[in-house]
């Protein structure tokens, strides 16, 4: 990009295994923990922060609380008067917050912005939660009266693959198993203590019930509570910050490229419009190629890892060919060849992704950016991809309606 560089200065995520309703905590407590942790980790100080952008999907429904941006002001006396805003694009909410933070920095309006992604979802029954999630799709048409609208929609994504290219569910099971395996290496992952393996993912039964269509429990990301706080900064702030840490600005990760597209809301419309095209979800593909172009990448092989939006195994299956790891429809090859596993040519979701690490809806985009940051700064601990220099993230909202891609690197 010819515009000013925007730096990513790391941050903090809460433990996605926690249940904040059981802890009797307000959603702002989760934001506060993410924020306080981020200060400790990044050594950014309250007075550095000039705005706070909050990504959240539906606290109105899950927590009966809107206006989340304003809670940030309570976290420190220095924040009185701080400009804040909440951003929403369903499951892509905090990626949108990050995009806007990038724009504000490039416009020269602010030098350092806290981007918080947050969702508290364990406040309601699974049925009610599934219904709430339905508001990320066209509720009246795609969700009302349907018990699990999103498993149904993403099951249909699998059906489209099956019809156009063929699809073997065992490849989906492999995706699930890899994400669970990676999650075991991630101390913040929701499922890190859960048992899951490929054999279990292949089997339908008491402990792996069929939800709808081809989607079983192990194909789904699970209801998760979590918050993430990361920092985006201008060149000017990054220079000062690097000095503070005794580093050079060049050592700090930045946003190398990005893509942002919106497809038509209804899944049937998406699919009807992609009929005869190489990619099932052309607008997801465009967000990816836009990001490659802006980052000056030739293709996916210029990346060292990907954090993608595996809300269901089918969405990761889609991401594999849409990122260009294989020809369209051939995602299974990358799975069979071990390309996407830790140690593979291009690991996907070293963190465990949404299936393994968890999917607190509004927090996921920020969590992906934080994990990209950790990878390129080699601070990902047990789930580090050795020597990672460039990592892509794909955060989608609805049935791949809102698509946001970032390339993070140095």
């Amino acid at each position, binding site marked *: 990009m010819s515009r000013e560089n925007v730096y990513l200065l790391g941050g903090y995520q*809460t*433990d996605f295994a*926690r249940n904040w309703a*059981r*802890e*009797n*905590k*307000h959603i*702002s*407590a*989760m*934001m*506060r*923990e993410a924020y*306080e*942790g981020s200060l*400790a*980790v990044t050594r950014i100080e309250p007075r550095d922060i000039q705005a706070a952008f909050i990504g959240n999907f539906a606290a109105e429904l899950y927590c009966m609380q809107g206006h989340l941006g304003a809670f940030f002001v*309570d976290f420190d006396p220095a924040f009185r008067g701080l400009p804040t805003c909440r951003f929403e694009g369903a499951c892509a909410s905090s990626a949108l917050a990050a995009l806007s933070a990038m724009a504000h920095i490039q416009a020269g309006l602010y030098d350092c912005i806290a981007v918080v992604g947050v969702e508290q979802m364990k406040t309601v029954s699974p049925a009610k939660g599934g219904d709430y999630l339905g508001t990320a799709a066209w509720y009246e048409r795609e969700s009302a009266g349907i018990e699990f609208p999103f498993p149904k929609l993403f099951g249909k994504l699998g059906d489209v693959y099956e019809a156009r290219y063929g699809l073997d569910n065992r490849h989906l099971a492999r995706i699930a198993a890899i994400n669970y395996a990676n999650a*075991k290496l991630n101390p913040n992952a929701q499922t*890190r*203590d*859960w*048992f*899951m*393996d490929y*054999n*279990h993912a292949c*089997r339908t*039964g*008491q*402990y*792996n019930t069929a939800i709808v269509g081809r989607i079983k429990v192990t194909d789904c990301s699970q209801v998760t509570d979590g918050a993430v706080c990361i920092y985006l900064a201008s060149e000017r702030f990054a220079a000062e910050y690097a000095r503070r840490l005794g580093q050079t600005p060049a050592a700090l990760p930045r946003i190398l490229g990005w893509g942002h597209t919106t497809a038509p809301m209804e899944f049937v419309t998406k699919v009807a419009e992609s009929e005869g095209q190489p990619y099932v979800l052309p607008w997801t593909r465009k967000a990816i190629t836009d990001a490659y172009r802006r980052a000056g990448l030739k293709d996916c092989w210029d990346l060292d890892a990907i954090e993608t939006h595996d809300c269901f195994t089918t969405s990761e299956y889609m991401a594999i060919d849409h990122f260009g790891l294989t020809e369209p429809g051939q995602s299974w090859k990358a799975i069979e060849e071990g390309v996407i596993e830790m140690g593979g040519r291009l690991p996907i979701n070293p963190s465990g992704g949404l299936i393994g690490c968890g999917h607190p809806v509004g927090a996921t985009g920020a969590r992906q950016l934080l994990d990209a940051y950790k990878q390129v700064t080699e601070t990902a601990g047990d789930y580090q991809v050795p020597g990672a220099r460039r990592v892509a993230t794909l955060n989608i909202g609805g049935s791949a309606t809102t698509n946001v891609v970032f390339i993070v690197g140095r």
Partner: protein
Amino acid sequence: MERTIQTVAVLGASGTVGSLTGGLLAQNGLRVYFLSRTREGSQKGLEKAIAQARSEVIADNIICGDYDSMLSEAVPKADWILECVAEDLSVKQAMYERLEPLRRPGTIVSSVTSSLVLEDLPKGRSEDFQKHFLSTHFYNPPGKMSACEICGQSKTDPALVEFMADFLHRRLRRAVIPVRPTAGFAGNRIAFLLFARITELAAEYGVEMMDYLIGPYTGRVMAPLATIDLVGLDIHKAIIQSLQTHTCDALHSKLVLPDYLEKMIGQGHLGRKTRDKGGFYKRLESGQYEYIDPKSLTYIPAFQPHVRFVEEAKQLIHIGRYRDAFEHIREAKGTEAGLVQEILATYIAYSYMLVGEVTEQKYGIEGIDRVMMTGFNWASPSLLVYMLGGKEKTAELLASKGLPVPASLLEDTVWERYPFNAGRYFPAK
């Protein structure tokens, strides 16, 4: 040759500890023999293991059998024999005797005991047996509690302890706490002293009030007397007695078994295992609870205590202002506040006191921190020091409660680190 563990024989696999720990091994890809007195018992253990894993596929890794017909097959194949039989010295020793002729030299034997004197267990066994014998004290249920205290006795090969610590950490993702071979190791030694003191206070202030005051908001997922109900009052008594017998320290006098508690056991109020008779709590059909009155040993309805500083602290915790909550607790006045402060102070003082005794001095507070978090779901002592405003303020608090101020506290720097995931130990209730 590098030592590897591929096959494990679990003895006592019909019990909760044996089956769930055995299941954990199977989940992690080990081949596991589930052995107990009867094949049916082992089979029941397998079912518990499946329920813990929430998956039938682990059964592929498990072979069930009874001692008589399968010990001779399993033990020679095992790289590790995990003994989870009854917490009785003679039972364990008899089992070890049966193993002796069957086990290959070099095969690891570990016991899950924490309250027996470790040195006594392998007495009379071969040198190779003793060299490869240690305690691996898994906390229960291992699917939720990742703590595992590990300890050799005098003859144990130190390299083997190190190997097992590494194996438990890497392969089974345990929070491994190397401990010294003292009764109760680290976790039970500390927790049960506090339980004892709280049972003593309950005689005066009541069960409901004590669990309200020392409730989850003070840094634990479950209130203390409710925890004793879960453990079982009989087990509680056994642990306290073992600690009374085998340990001695400046707070030894707090290790009490109040009369009313003995009477409760005598009348069969053992806790959750005697659901109909109750324990400290008794669950009514309505889902409500009644609490035992230590004076009359009858159950009385809940009176829903409401103490202002407690409610205010919970409200601060509810919005994530943990340190503000603990400042509030620290500065609160009155009898109830004094009790909460005393218990927190006792916990901190005792934990730091035991550094060097239950864990190696070189680990500082970290081993104890880890076992309290991962074995009990309690805020660690150093985390409480952080929450209470630092070691100076904490030392003042300890002194004001007439408690020793351990040198290890004054030298500690662990508390200064930002405590990862601290909030989870402080439910707002």
